[in-house]
């Protein structure tokens, strides 16, 4: 059983105990490549696209997807950024909420198509917060959502545009997207 510290789920803490592998690292790469092609197809190129990874799980995925997009459309100068939604969450005061990293949106989003990239789509609250946060950087002409895993259990009317894998889960389970692929497991007390 693989065990690793979930340092990036600071408010929860604990140790992630993996139960089974859902996608291998190669599967993740293939899914990212397909999603990148879908982004190009849907937007007729990536001229207006700004790729924004959500801290922290979405950032490495956005970086990899940007590499693929640059290979598909080498002529276009793709803009990328990262976003931390801690200051926009709706559970501030209910549990400790801390920013993981500094937000970096290098361009005015007015008139651009923002593709948000995250690892796991669960309740939809992170994406709700991200939509609010994006508003502060200009009025994007459209916002699209790319996630590696859609695990269900939505609490808000939010749906992804690009999905790596639809993965039915139980609420108390945990999905971990890392360097070594996607694992399903549970979070145990330290």
């Amino acid at each position, binding site marked *: 059983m693989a065990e690793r510290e979930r340092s990036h789920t600071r408010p929860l803490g604990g140790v992630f105990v993996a139960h089974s592998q859902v996608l291998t690292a190669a599967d993740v790469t293939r899914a990212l490549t397909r999603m990148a092609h879908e982004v190009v197809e849907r937007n007729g190129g990536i001229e207006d696209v700004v790729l924004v990874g959500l801290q922290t799980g979405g950032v490495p995925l956005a970086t990899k997807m940007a590499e693929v997009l640059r290979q598909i459309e080498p002529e276009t100068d793709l803009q990328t950024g990262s976003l*931390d939604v*801690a*200051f*926009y969450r709706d559970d*501030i*005061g209910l549990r*400790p*909420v*801390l*920013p993981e*990293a*500094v*937000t*970096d949106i290098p361009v005015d989003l007015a008139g651009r198509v923002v593709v948000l990239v995250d690892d796991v789509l669960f309740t939809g609250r992170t994406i709700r917060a991200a939509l*609010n*946060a994006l508003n*502060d*950087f200009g009025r994007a002409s459209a916002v699209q959502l790319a996630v590696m895993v859609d695990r269900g259990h939505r609490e808000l009317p939010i749906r992804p545009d690009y999905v790596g894998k639809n993965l039915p889960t139980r609420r108390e389970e945990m999905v971990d997207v890392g360097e070594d692929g996607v694992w399903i497991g549970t979070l145990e007390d330290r």
Partner: protein
Amino acid sequence: MSAPRHLLSVADLGRDGIAEVLRVAEAFAEVERRSVPKVPTLRGKVVATLFFEESTRTRLSFETAAKRLSADVLSLAVASSSVKKGESLRDTVETVEAMGIDAVIIRHSSAGAPHQVARWVERARVVNAGDGWHEHPTQALLDCFTVRQVLAERKGASPEELGIDCFEGLRVLIVGDVRHSRVARSEVLAYRALGAQVTLAAPGSLLPPSLDGWPVEVAADFDEALGDADVVSLLRLQAERGSGSYVPSLREYTAGWGLTARRVSRLREHAMVTHPGPMVRGVEIASDVADLPRTVVTQQVANGVAVRMAILFLLLGGELPGAAGVPAVA
């Protein structure tokens, strides 16, 4: 270890707590660089500033910080409040709390007043914005934040990349009216917690009566100490606390302990000068020196907002990390 509910002293934080405050402040510094520097984080929270002593920058800085977090801000102008009618501090605080205020930012001329207030409040968070000669924790935190920012800029790195280890072995020289300075006390705690060396330089009459237990050295020769320092932290001669009578004359003080153009030439090339403000040009710092690039007073003021946003956010929305082993007060 429970998280401190209040920020009364730098000692409540410890090394890890300070590191966390600086980390979160970095995220708020980004918010400040936006065209609309405001986030909805503390919407619905009420922050009150209770300043029983005059202040320009600290009060403005706290109020700006709270407003950028979308909190509502009430400021009690003591001069026009019931305090003038003889209301006690306790009654004032109870009134404020009865109104459902979430955080009280207090400055008071008596050391320990914020600690006392923290004992009285039931749910509000208390932030010490300066109590007598005792402490001014947010000033020390923003000084550390500024020092790291300058070090990072010079290295061409981001402050996060530099981490907290950049303070290890840093030589800080605190100059001037240490006796009456709450900034000096908080700075000593903060810089020492981060592993810096702290040296004091002041006329004997302006050093605290006892330095027992202070992890500092006292400079034998001011001019020599200047040549060793990485950071020179100047303090204001606090005339309102009577420090005028501790020195023969202002001119003599300047001659002996002021940072004059001649003394600046002794500084190492990279040494920076901090001052908590308000500066008295011509006394503790020569006017020309105050305008040198190495004098980072303007950055300090600018960073004050981000650091105070971090404190308010950590107390009201996140979790203020405490020093290991130091019990949270109240």
